[in-house]
Structure formats: structure tokens, C-alpha cells
């Protein structure tokens, strides 16, 4: 009896808390389909009295979200692939071979990722101006790759180090060189860690604001996160359009999360138990 009561309390409490947690999100989704007149007459906090998808059209074309999403993907996809690729080869060499000073190199790379980005902002901006990359998506890709590398290398190193040495031995005896062992043996075995880091880094890079506004200036080149801030300025009191823009900006990361949910969570957990 007491047990039943406790279970009941637990589920009631948690259901309420979960709904409370999701309420702001649901609210924004509902608001994004309300008409301007509805919000003007009934207020931001009221229940919907109208339904329109025109808000999405406005955010998508007038607000430039389409172009911003394209920019975001043009930055995010190459950044994720490049940084994971570079991190994987570095982690492989550092974890499977006796590279002199490997521990120092690994920790130095990790330390670089833990630096507060503020100390890098001015030099990175000046350096991108110097190299002519300023205000191009290349600059953003380069800085995302450089800044993320340390952490990905550290995590992949931990993962590769734990793979049994016999596999590598066997491949070496069969005459495989380091490159073949990496491509044929190590990479397939590292797939779970790569998937986890891929899902995580996609969200991190896609959601970034600070690097984008540091190395980009032109509105047309901004990815979706800074573009959303601009949208807020453009549609000052059109809360429905801003809400629609917010939903559009959130959809890609939510999709990645839902698709790779297990990897995503295990990726965060890798950091915790390592």
C-alpha cells in the first residue's frame, strides 16, 4: 500500500516536472502558428485563437533563415568531419605507438580546448584578417576545427588505448603498415566513439554564437544561431515570426539528438567516466 502510494507520488511529481520543463518549448511552438492579430489582441501569454503557417514563410524567406541554415550546414558538416578525422589520426598515433612525449602532447592538446575562448577572440580575429579569411566561412571552419581538436583527440585516445593490443599485433604480422591498421582495424572499432563525438560536435558547432560573430561580419554569411539574433531585431514585436524562427533553428539539433540519442548521451558520459 505504502509502496503503491510512493510510486504514485513519484510518477505524479515527475510527470508534472517534465511537463513544466517542456512547457516553454511547447509554448513557443504554439506561438509560432498564431497570427499577428491574434497575439496583438489576446496577448503573448494567451491560448491560441488562430492558426497560420505564414510565420514560417516569413522567417524562412524574409528573415533569411534558409540562407542561414545553409551557412550553418556549410560550416558544421566540414568542421565535424575534419576535426574528427584529424583527432582520430592523432589519437591513433598517440595511443598505439611510442611517440616521444606523447603524454605531454595529449595533455597540451586537451589544455588548449579547456582555455576560455575569450583569450583567443582578438588574436583569432586579427589572424583571420591577416590571412584574408576574415568574414568567410573558411575562417569559422578553421577555428572550430582547431578549438575542438584537443577534446576529441583526448576522448578518442582514451577509447583507442583500451582496444586490445593483439589485434594490432596480428595485423602487423600480416604485413599491414600503420595506415592500413588505422583504416582497416582501428577506425571500424572506434565507430561508437566517433558516432558519439560526431553527434555532440554537430550540436556544439551548430549552436555556436561567439566564434561566428568574432570571425564573420556580413549578415548574409552568418550561420543560423547569430542569424536568429538578427531576426529578433528585424521582427521586433512579431513574436510569432520570432517563435517560428526559433523553431526552425532548433529543428536540426533536435533531429540529430533524436536520431543519435543513445550515442549522444554516451558521448556526454564518456567525458564523465574518463
Amino acid at each position: 500500500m505504502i509502496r503503491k502510494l510512493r510510486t504514485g507520488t513519484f510518477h505524479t511529481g515527475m510527470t508534472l516536472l517534465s511537463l513544466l520543463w517542456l512547457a516553454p518549448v511547447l509554448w513557443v511552438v504554439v506561438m509560432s502558428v498564431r497570427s499577428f492579430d491574434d497575439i496583438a489582441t489576446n496577448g503573448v501569454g494567451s491560448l491560441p485563437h488562430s492558426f497560420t503557417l505564414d510565420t514560417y514563410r516569413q522567417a524562412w524567406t524574409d528573415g533569411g533563415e534558409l540562407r542561414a541554415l545553409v551557412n550553418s550546414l556549410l560550416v558544421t558538416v566540414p568542421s565535424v568531419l575534419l576535426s574528427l578525422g584529424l583527432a582520430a589520426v592523432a589519437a591513433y598515433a598517440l595511443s598505439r605507438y611510442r611517440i616521444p612525449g606523447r603524454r605531454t602532447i595529449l595533455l597540451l592538446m586537451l589544455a588548449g580546448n579547456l582555455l576560455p575562448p575569450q583569450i583567443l577572440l582578438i588574436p583569432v580575429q586579427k589572424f583571420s584578417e591577416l590571412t584574408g579569411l576574415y568574414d568567410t566561412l573558411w575562417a569559422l571552419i578553421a577555428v572550430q576545427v582547431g578549438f575542438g581538436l584537443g577534446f576529441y583527440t583526448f576522448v578518442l585516445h582514451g577509447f583507442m588505448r583500451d582496444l586490445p593490443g593483439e589485434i594490432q599485433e596480428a595485423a602487423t604480422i600480416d604485413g599491414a603498415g600503420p595506415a592500413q591498421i588505422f583504416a582497416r582495424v582501428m577506425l571500424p572499432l572506434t565507430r561508437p566513439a566517433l558516432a558519439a563525438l560526431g553527434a555532440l560536435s554537430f550540436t556544439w558547432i551548430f549552436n555556436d554564437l561567439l566564434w561566428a560573430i568574432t570571425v564573420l561580419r556580413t549578415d548574409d554569411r552568418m550561420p543560423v544561431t547569430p542569424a536568429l539574433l538578427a531576426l529578433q531585431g528585424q521582427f521586433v514585436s512579431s513574436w510569432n515570426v520570432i517563435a517560428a524562427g526559433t523553431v526552425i533553428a532548433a529543428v536540426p539539433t533536435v533531429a540529430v539528438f533524436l536520431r543519435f540519442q543513445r550515442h549522444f548521451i554516451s558521448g556526454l558520459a564518456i567525458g564523465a567516466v574518463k
Partner: protein
Amino acid sequence: MSVSTIAETAGTETSTVAGTPRRRRRSQRLSPLLVAFVLVPFAVESIWVFWPALQGFWFSLTSWDGQTPPEFIGIDNYAELAGDATFRGALVNTVIWLVLFGGLSVVGGFGMALLLQRERRGVGFYRAALFTPVVFSLVVTALVWRVFYQPDGVADQILRAVGLEHLVRAWLADPQTALYAVILPALWRQIGYVMVLFLAGLKAIDPALHEAARVDGANGWQRLWRVTIPQLKGVNAVVLSVIVIDSLRSFDIVWSLTRAGPYHSSELLSTYMYSAAFQSLRLGYASAIAVVIFVLALAVILGYLVRAFREEA
């Protein structure tokens, strides 16, 4: 922690394998491909992280507007910081941010992890609900909450509904409440993240320890303090590092909700650094603020690295 024990044993095994025949070791060391495998990523990080970081320290000793060449002025920037009221306010706000945002997300995340650690019906949904905000960018989070704080928005309506009209105010535009109104959305997003970290840690605790404690007559509270929390030592260190680093980095949410205003009331060191650099174009002065952020983060990073190093050894 069981996970790290596995890692350690596996680690020793690998190093013996890699180390046995001496001549193979030498031929491996000479492989130019492996050298490139390490050097290329390291060079990329050097160009975009290590070198800029060193430059950052140098710039903090200069007066620079970004147009004319930087001019060396010694520690004048730091001397000016000491007397800058805005800087002091930002420092105090950063400490408040660290304590409230950090403390509450640890308490909330740990509490939720304890409640949701046992696999039972519905737990998957509850975890997913708490975790959902983590995938949103901080700008998305800010816009979601902006609606909530609007004059006559949801917050005000709730207060009116429960008869607390006198509390209604312009949450983000009132210097007394702006900082706290920004912390709340940040917490909403962070708690699920911290919860996942603790869930992973709780999962790694050997259930036999709890069983033994229960047989010895320890109650739930005693088991929490004497078994669970000491067993989470490793995770606690990670959570602490994550929280401190995240707090010092916090920029997006403040920038999108209040632009550090009104009257610097929600100014953090990170936002002050950004506006000093890219709005006032005082690049040397901004670099000095960045160095202060770095020094604050350094203690934590060192702690983190010492731990990582110990595990590697």
C-alpha cells in the same frame, strides 16, 4: 570506479605489447606517416589556439585600437582594471553566476539523477524531458524565455493568477532582476546536462556496495553520504570542471537576453571582454580582461589535468 579500473588494466596491456621487441619500436618511431598523424593536428591547433593564446597575453600588455600597431604599456591595463567599477561589477556578477548557476545545477542535476537512476516505467520519458533543452543553442533558449518574461507574458500572467501582482515587473529590464532572470534559463538548460553526467557515474557504482551497507543497517540517507557520494569522486571532479568552465565561458545567453544591461547589471567578465574588444575597440584592455578569465579558469583546468594525468600514468 569500475570503468577506470578496466581502462587502467587495458592500458598496461597495450603498452607492454607495443613495447616488447626493441627494433620494431624503433622502426615505428621513424615512420614519417605517424609523425605526420601527430604533427598535422598539433599544427592546426597551434595555429588556431596555442599561438593566439600567447598573443592574447602579449596584447594584454599593450594599448591597441586594432588600426595602428599595438603599443607596449606594461601592466597599465591591469592597473586600470583594478579601479574600473564596471569590471568589479562584472567580477561580482561572475562570482554570483558561478555560485547560483553552478551550485543549483549541481544540486538539481544530482537530485534528478538520484530520482531517475533506477530503470522503471516512465523514467525514459522523464529523462528525455529534462534533457531536451540541452540540445538547444543558448540563443534558442534565450528567445524561448524572452517570451516568458515579456510584459504581460507568461511569467506575469502566472503571478497575476496566484495574486502576486505586486511582484510583476520588467524582468529583463530591471537592474535588480536582470541577472537572475538570465540565470534561470541557463539553469533550465544545464540541469539536464549535469543529470546525464551523474547518471553515468551512478551507473558505474557497484550495487554490491549498497547491498553491503544495507545489510549493515545503513538507512537511505547514510548510504547516500557514505556510499554514493564518495564513489562519485571522479564524476564530481568532472562536473566541477564543466560547471566552472561553462560559467566563465557564459556569454551567449546573457548577450541574447540583455546585452549585459541594463546599466551593466547583468554584465559578466565574458560580456565585458567582448564589448571592450569589439565595441569600444580597446583590444589591449579587453585582452587583460581575458587574461583575468584565464587565470580564474586555470585553477580548475590544472585540477582537471592533474586528474587526467594520474589516470594516464
